[in-house]
C-alpha cells in the first residue's frame, strides 16, 4: 500500500489526536480536566493551521493560528474555568456522575458514532490535492462524538464543552476542505464563537445561581 506522504500523515495524526481528545472529554469526570483537554484540542487546531500554512504557502493561516490559539487555548478555557470552578478550587457539583450511560458503554457508543461519522464522510469522496481525505473523515467522526458528548452528559459544563469541541471539529473540517477561506470570514467565525462563549457563560451562571449545581437533570419542566 502506498505511503500517504509526510504532510498528509502529519495532518491526519493531528486530526486523530483531536479525535482522541474528544473521547477524553467524553470520558473525563471533572470539569477541570475537560477544560484542559479542550485547550489541548484547540492547541492542536492551531498547530494544524501552522502545518497547512507552511506546506501550502498560505500565510493567512499563520494569523488564523495565532488568533485561534489566543482565543481557544487561552481565553475560552480561562472563562470556563473561572465560571465552572468554585473559588476554593473544589469541583462544582453536578458534573461528575452526570452520565446517562455507564462510561464504558458511552465510549463504545461513541466508537459507533465515530465509525458512522468517519465512514459517511469518508464515503463522500470529497478530496482534492489540498484535502487529506482521512482528516476530513476524522472531522466527521469528531462532529458525531461531540454530539454524543452533549447527549450522554447531563450537565451544563459538559454540554457547553461538547458544543465548543463541536466547533473545533468544524474548524478542523474547514481547515481541511476550505483552507483558502478568506481570513476575514474565518475571523468573523471566531468572533462569533466568542459571542457564543459569552452567552453560554451567562446562561451557565444563571443556571448555577438558580440550582446550585451544574446538573441539567432537573430541567424537565417543559414538555409537550
Amino acid at each position, binding site marked *: *500500500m502506498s505511503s500517504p506522504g509526510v504532510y498528509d*500523515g502529519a495532518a*491526519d*495524526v493531528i486530526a*486523530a489526536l483531536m479525535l482522541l481528545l474528544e*473521547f477524553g472529554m467524553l470520558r473525563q469526570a471533572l470539569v477541570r480536566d475537560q477544560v484542559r483537554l479542550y485547550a489541548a484540542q484547540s492547541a492542536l487546531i492551531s498547530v494544524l493551521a501552522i502545518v497547512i500554512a507552511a506546506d501550502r504557502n498560505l500565510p493567512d493561516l499563520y494569523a488564523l493560528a495565532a488568533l485561534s490559539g489566543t482565543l481557544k487555548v487561552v481565553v475560552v478555557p480561562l472563562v470556563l474555568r473561572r465560571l465552572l470552578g468554585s473559588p476554593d478550587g473544589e469541583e462544582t457539583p453536578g458534573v461528575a456522575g452526570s452520565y446517562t450511560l455507564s462510561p464504558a458503554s458511552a*465510549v463504545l457508543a461513541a466508537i459507533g458514532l465515530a465509525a458512522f461519522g468517519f*465512514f459517511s464522510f*469518508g464515503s463522500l469522496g470529497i478530496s482534492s490535492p489540498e484535502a487529506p481525505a482521512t482528516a476530513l473523515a476524522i472531522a466527521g467522526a469528531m462532529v458525531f462524538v461531540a454530539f454524543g458528548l452533549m447527549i450522554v452528559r447531563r450537565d451544563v459544563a459538559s454540554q457547553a464543552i461538547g458544543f465548543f469541541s463541536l466547533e473545533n471539529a468544524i474548524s478542523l473540517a474547514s481547515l481541511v476542505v476550505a483552507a483558502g477561506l478568506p481570513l476575514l470570514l474565518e475571523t468573523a467565525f471566531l468572533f462569533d464563537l466568542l459571542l457564543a462563549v459569552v452567552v453560554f457563560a451567562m446562561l451557565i451562571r444563571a443556571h448555577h445561581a438558580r440550582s446550585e449545581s451544574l446538573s441539567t437533570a432537573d430541567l424537565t419542566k417543559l414538555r409537550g
Partner: protein
Amino acid sequence: MSAAVPIPLIQLLQVLTVALAAPGLTGVIAKVEARLQGRRGPRVLQPYYDLAKLVRKESLAPEGASWFFLAAPLVAVAAYLTIPLLIPVLTTYGLPLGYLGDILGGGFLLSLASFVIAAAALETGSPYAQLGSSRAKTFSAITEPVVLFVVFTVALLTGTDLPYHMAAVVRSSAGQVIRPAHLLASAALFMVILLETGRIPVETHTGTNEFGMIEEARSFEHSGPYLALLRWGGELKQFILFTILADVFVVPWGLASTQRLGDVVLAIAALLAKAVAVGCVVAVIDDSFAKLRLFKITEYASAAFLLAVLGVFTMYLGGG
C-alpha cells in the same frame, strides 16, 4: 569484519539473545525505577542470581496436583523460546524458520503459554493462584480484540500478516511512520504490553499485596527450578513483547541487513539498546502513575481498544 555468519547460527543467535538478555532487562528496569525513586536499587544482574538460587532449591508440588502442574512451566518457556524465531529480532530479511508462523502464530504461542500457566494454577487449589489466573484470563479476553485490531492494521498496511513485512513497510518512508494508523496501532500495542507484563497502571510489579495481583499471583505454588522457569518465562515474554514493539512497530532500524558478522553484532547491540530504552519508558510510567483500581482496568483496556479501532478506521480510507 567480512566473515559471514551462517544463517542457522543467526537463527540460533536470535533465540539466545532473547533468552540471555531477558533477565537483564528486568534488572535494568528495576534499577532505573529505583534510581527514579532515589534509591540505589538492586544490582542489574540480580535477576540472574535469583534464577540461579531458585534452580538450586528443592521443588515442591501441592498434594493432588497432576503432572500437568510440573509440565506447565516447561511448555510455557518452550513457547516463549519459539517466538523469537518468528519475529525480526536481528535481521531485516526473513530467516527460514521465520515463516513457521505469522503474527497470529506468535499470538497463539503467547496465549498458549499464558493458558498453561493459568491451568497449572488451577491445579493447586490455592485461592490466590486461582484468583490471579481468573483475573489474567478476564483481562486477556478484553485485550484480545485490541491485539486483533492491531493485527488488522498490520494486515491492511502490508497486505500480509508477517512481522518482517510490517517492519519493512515502516522502514520504507517517513510517511509510513507518521501515518495515524501506524501510530495508533503502536500506542494500542504499547498499552496492551503494559497490561500483559503486569506493569503500572495495571499491576504493581514488585508488590506483595495479593489482592491487587494478577500475573504475579499465578506462580504462588511453584517452587525451585519450576518457579525459576516461570520467572524466566515472564522475563522472556517481556523481552519479546518489547522486541515486537520496537522492531516491528516503532523503531525497526538497526537490524542487520546482511550476514556479515559486524552487522549481526551491531544488531544485537541495537536490540539491547532498544529494549533498554523501552524499559526506561516503562520504568518512568511505573513511577509516575498510580495503580488503577481493578474494575477500572476494563476502562484502560477500552482506551487501548479505542486506539486500535481508530487505527483500523483511518487505515480503511487508504490515506491513514
